């Protein structure tokens, strides 16, 4: 399971380097990879930090390159981040445990199915949004900021609820 997580982490930090092969992106990539590697040894929160750093690296690469949008790559990157978190979590849980027959195979089947569905859904949603944006002009940046704030608020509320319990 760790091989799969390591491959995903390597792919995630390498993709932004293809977009903008500059030193600053490389440094962040190295840091993200190091955090993921430490996460394998010490716990999944470090993998989460590594994933966030990979996102920062991706955003920086996009900002530096100034190239036209690559939506297929972005959808794959999103699927990769989700699978990285899920596989790292499963790998951590399955440490020092007996894995029954078919456990790994069924998990891989699930992740593959999820990857296909999530990637396709993201692309379809993007297509729909693009089509809709032709007719309806939304102020995207404030809308996204509001969505992000709402998600962050939900996350904080969830965290506080867990701690009280």
């Amino acid at each position, binding site marked *: 399971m760790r091989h799969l997580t390591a491959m995903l982490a390597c792919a995630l930090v390498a993709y932004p380097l293809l977009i903008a092969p500059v030193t600053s992106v490389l440094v962040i990539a190295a840091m993200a990879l190091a955090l993921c590697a430490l996460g394998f040894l010490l716990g*999944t*929160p470090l993998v*989460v930090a590594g*994933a*966030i750093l990979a*996102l*920062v690296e*991706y*955003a920086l690469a*996009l*900002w530096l390159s100034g190239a036209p*949008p*690559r*939506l297929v*790559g*972005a*959808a794959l*990157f*999103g*699927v990769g*981040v*989700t699978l990285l*978190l*899920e596989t790292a*979590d*499963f790998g951590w*849980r*399955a440490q*020092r*445990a*007996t*894995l*029954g*027959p*078919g*456990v790994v195979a*069924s*998990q891989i089947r*699930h992740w593959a199915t*999820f990857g296909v*569905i*999530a*990637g396709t*859904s*993201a692309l379809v*949603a*993007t297509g729909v949004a693009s089509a809709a944006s032709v007719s309806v002009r939304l102020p*995207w*940046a404030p809308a*996204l*900021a509001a*969505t*992000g704030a709402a*998600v*962050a608020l*939900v*996350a904080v509320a*969830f*965290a506080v609820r*867990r701690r009280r319990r």
Partner: protein
Amino acid sequence: MTTRLTPLVLSVTTVGAWGLVLAVFSGRAELVVVVLPLLLALLVTSRTTAPPDWSITHTISAERVFEGERVTVTVTVVAGQAVALLELFEPLPPGMRVVGGHNRGFFTLARGQRVEWKYEVECVRRGRVSLGTMHARWWDRAGFHAGETAMRAPWQLRVYPSVLPLRRLPGPRRTQSSVGNYVAPSVGEGLEPGDIREFVPGDRVRHVNWRASLRFGRLFVTQYHLERNADVILMLDTLAEAGAAPDTTVDASIRAAAALATAYLARKDRVGLIEYCGPFRWVRPDSGRAHHERLLEALLRADVMFSYVTQEVALVPRRVLPPQALVIAISPLLDARFEKAVVDLAARGFDVMVLSPSPIPLVRRARRASPSVDLACRLWALERKARAEALRRLGIAIVEWNPAEPLQAALGGLVGARRRRAAR
């Protein structure tokens, strides 16, 4: 039975939020697309999973083992309905250690499927182990949602103290009337030849010594020494202990008691046990295999139990402590109450000897080496030597045993000490 969202949901939410924030700051649509699979995964989470229907059964390869032996635990899981991912965990008590496989397992079960899961444990410390609480957690495939429950499938294991091999044992000063392995000075029915005397009517023909009869021209018979057994009382000190489990002084004492009981019973002696833990707990002297098991059961229960009660040895009934018994006191000599009891027994004319498992190497092993520990151990050794000398002056044979070394070597010292004392 409880269900909950897992920390992975928080992780995915955090990463998603970061993605949206970065999308705002960078003004790139790709970062919004990156967040979409994360949001989709969270949407899938909202589906609640029904608690699965499953059952477990336990089997173990042996129900009674000795310390250091291994037991294979087989857990059979049967699913009444399909389970995406079932995690089972069986916590083990401190006296057991997993040596093969794992005591935690993940299973994916189809409806009606039966899965066997095996792991091997080593029994490190004696005791009666009751197990069988299986903690179960079922997960959805993504790992966002989990439910927990615990299930009882009780199984019990008895771990007897390991029996150390012994060849030579300290012999008793006085024997009993039953048949045993000790050659008595008096003559009668036995195997060991003694004197020769003239035949008198009533002697058995098979006792006729034909060589002497032919030489002297008269009938002579060979007399034989009686073979007797002895009563051996093992007196165990459980007033205090030193060292870290599973190598405390009480553990060492119990192993020594088990070895001595096994060896003396093999010599047809009657063996009894007195556990001195403030009040007395005892097993009456007897012989045979059933009694061996009785003694081992009593040793399973033996443990340090703090008590302000101090009973006198005079309270122990005669049938438990017969007057001509050999008393082997097994004590690290940490509590003065036990020493007093030993001196009291010696003063009452009992044949008493002390086997003292030394607490110093056990404590040294449990603590980190330092000059202060070294000095304390040296002072402690001097104090123990002085106490042992005081007991010797009272005529009590005492020998110190380092539990890391074979018990036979220490008992050799005890045999020698008794022989020297008898010669004086």
